[in-house]
């Protein structure tokens, strides 16, 4: 009898586990966003407000994994790389339909990739610059001929700009030029993604409904997504967004100010989540010998830049600005970026900073300035903290507050000494951030003017290195060289703070920032 009871209990336990494991279907999720999307075209968009939700509408050939470091099958079930690394063969998934019911074909894939790699189109074509031609080998195989072996290509094929659009419907959109067609198409996008845009009141709300033709299956064997509908509400004010969440009018809200995280963590109805991110915050420095006005630039001396790094108490800044929720930076890239290699050094050390300044000939002190975006609380806090910290080694920091467009104009003109800056990766590969931070030819190494021939040589090599282990070793060297040259003041890497009601399950914001709703369910 005892044994029978025990078996029965086990059976019940197993049964309930199964019941609770299956996600609940249906329901509408209301999600508070801080800003609305602008342009839902995968190729021509330019902003995170688009990039971070676009993969709910369109699919890519491969998809990013939830840790943001790898890829998994998407519209392509598998891919094969030739021995010389210059041919990339993709097998397309059978039976995939667009949200309007038409079937996905190899033509759509060729059209979308050709459009994405066109150098005249948008800001992202550089991510797939290695693709020479796209050929349809047979109805479900597409072959990419590469100019050179490209280890970042799988990640690029999982990035928003290579999402697949329906060729016929796109070309049938109003307008003569690609740009005009994209504008018309993006008002009512057609994709193979889990959701379809059904209503959009710009600046106010956006409604996505379940795509009935979606190809991927859930844990119950039926088609995803679980939700019937997502309603995005645009609530720019942080306090209002949180109040709406607390009162139950929202099921989730993004960009919770870090100052409010501890309070929301205590709320029994909420699940305050800090998703790992690729965000890195730093102060970039002008490394050129002369400033724009022709005067000598003390920051061109590596010892001064290193001294400022030693005089920066990262832990104190993390406490002050992020309420202890960030991690100190140990490289220019975040620990969520593939091939990250933590560096050692720049521990808070005033004596070391003073020595370095003395060696650089600034033992009597010096004056520097930094630009911040006016009204930005985080940047103000960072700059004020640095002002105080650096004053202890005789460095006087002037803070210039400028509105974001003026700030950017001076940055682009290299007319600055320092600038508080934030970065997130768009692709699960270290080449993007390295290309911008450390390589001169793109944007003059984030306009710092930093240029290191040895680093650039290693980067060139890493761009064609198929072996992951060898590539990792090259990236260790790149990060070491950059860290020692200190073109920036390293600060911290911060998470994405999202607050959800406890009954919301399966939502992920991956380190690249993409909001993934395909597995989200409301368990109430």
């Amino acid at each position: 009898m005892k044994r029978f009871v025990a078996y029965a209990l086990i059976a019940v336990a197993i049964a309930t586990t199964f019941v609770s494991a299956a996600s609940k279907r249906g329901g509408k999720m209301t999600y508070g966003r801080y800003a609305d999307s602008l342009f839902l075209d995968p190729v021509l968009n330019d902003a995170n407000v688009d990039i971070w939700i676009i993969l709910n509408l369109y699919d890519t050939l491969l998809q990013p994994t939830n840790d943001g470091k790898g890829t998994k099958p998407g519209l392509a079930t598998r891919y094969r790389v030739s021995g010389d690394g210059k041919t990339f063969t993709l097998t397309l998934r059978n039976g995939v339909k667009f949200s309007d019911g038409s079937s996905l074909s190899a033509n759509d894939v060729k059209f979308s990739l050709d459009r994405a790699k066109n150098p005249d189109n948008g800001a992202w074509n550089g991510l797939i610059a290695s693709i020479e031609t796209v050929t349809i080998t047979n109805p479900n195989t597409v072959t990419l001929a590469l100019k050179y072996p490209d280890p970042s290509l799988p990640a690029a094929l999982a990035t928003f700009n290579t999402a697949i659009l329906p060729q016929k419907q796109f070309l049938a959109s109003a307008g003569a030029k690609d740009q005009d067609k994209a504008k018309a198409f993006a008002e009512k996008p057609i994709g193979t993604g889990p959701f379809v845009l059904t209503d959009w009141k710009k600046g106010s709300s956006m409604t996505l409904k379940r795509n009935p033709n979606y190809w991927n299956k859930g844990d119950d064997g039926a088609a995803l997504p679980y939700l019937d509908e997502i309603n995005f509400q645009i609530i720019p004010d942080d306090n209002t967004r949180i109040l709406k969440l607390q009162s139950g009018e929202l099921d989730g809200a993004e960009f919770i100010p870090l100052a409010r995280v501890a309070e929301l963590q205590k709320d029994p109805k909420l699940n305050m989540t800090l998703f790992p991110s690729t965000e890195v915050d730093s102060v970039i420095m002008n490394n050129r010998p002369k400033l724009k006005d022709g005067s000598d630039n003390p920051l061109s001396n590596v010892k001064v830049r290193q001294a400022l790094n030693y005089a920066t108490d990262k832990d104190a800044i993390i406490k002050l600005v992020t309420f202890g929720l960030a991690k100190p930076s140990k490289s220019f890239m975040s620990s969520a970026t593939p091939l990250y290699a933590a560096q050692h050094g720049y521990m808070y050390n005033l004596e070391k900073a003073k020595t370095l300044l003395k060696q650089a000939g600034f033992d009597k002190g010096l004056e520097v300035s930094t630009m911040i975006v006016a009204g930005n609380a985080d940047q103000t806090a960072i700059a004020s903290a640095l002002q105080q910290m650096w004053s202890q080694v005789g460095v006087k920091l002037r803070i210039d507050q400028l509105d974001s467009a003026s700030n950017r104009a001076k940055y682009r003109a290299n007319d600055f000494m320092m600038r508080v800056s934030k970065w997130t990766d768009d692709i699960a590969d270290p080449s993007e951030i390295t290309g911008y931070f450390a390589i001169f030819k793109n944007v003059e190494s984030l306009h710092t003017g930093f240029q290191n021939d040895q680093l650039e040589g290693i980067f060139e090599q890493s761009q064609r290195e198929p072996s992951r282990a060898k590539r990792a070793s090259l990236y260790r060297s790149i990060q070491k060289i950059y860290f020692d040259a200190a073109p920036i003041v390293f600060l911290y890497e911060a998470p994405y703070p999202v607050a959800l009601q406890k009954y919301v399950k399966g939502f992920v914001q991956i380190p690249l920032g993409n909001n993934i709703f395909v597995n989200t369910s409301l368990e109430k």
Partner: protein
Amino acid sequence: MNRWSYIIMRVLQVIPTFFVVMALVFFMVRLLPGDPTSAILGERATEAMIARGNKELGLDKPLIVQFGVFVGHFFQGDLGDSINLKVPVFRLILERMPVTLFLTLYASVLAVLLAVPLSFVAALRRDTGIDSAIRGMFQIGLSMPVFYIGLQLLTILGARWRLFPIGGYGETFFEHLWYLFLPALTLGFNLAAILMRNLRAAILEVLQSEYVDFARAKGLRSSLILGKHVLRNAVISTVTLFGLNIGGLIGGAVITESVFAIPGVGRLMVDSIFGRDYPVIQGLTLTFAVLVSLTFILTDIVHAQLDPRVEVT
């Protein structure tokens, strides 16, 4: 000059103002540092990308040519497309302007409904506890920033007592009334305070005048005296003040719309300025210029109605 020619004259006077505003806004937004192309392309744009973007937007042409294009399009009823939102500016204004107008009108109505009766009570009960309480309340209205009042109303009436929704605009007319009650109150409270201070003083002054004594001596009912003689004479300067402050209401709407997540033009204007979205800034400024001018004309007309001595010169 009769009433109609007065109105027509006032409307005609607006036209040159409009053209000055048009030229001013066009050149002033371009004097600001920064440009729309690098604002949309962001930090990662290369020089080549910026140049291509400028060419596509026609921003590589000389300023005077761009101005010609702007004026030319304007007379064809085309305000251009928003650079950031990729939709026609005219459509944006048509979508968003009614929301802001509803909010400011609602706020004005609430302000008048608050200010008129309370000024009477305060004036008639001069220097009593009630007078001090009313004046004290409005002093708070004058000195407290709009966003703070808004946030407090939201926290208490919205989140704690659940009497009103937190933010949003609603779908139907009655939903608008319900959704916009807190924002309109927030916005109207400050205006009510300004009106109330002026109206109370005016009522006190009129109450002292001889014709009011005379009306009392005739034995007229006090409601008639207050309604017909006192209010009409006291309200004249307040009407002018009200008209002048409508422009301020639109300014306050920028903050209110942001706190209450209302999709009006206030928020759009701020975003467009930060994004250097020239066509939207131009379109909105011109619309505001028309609205403010119309308000002034309306104020003058009402003023002329109330006070027959007012004439156009």
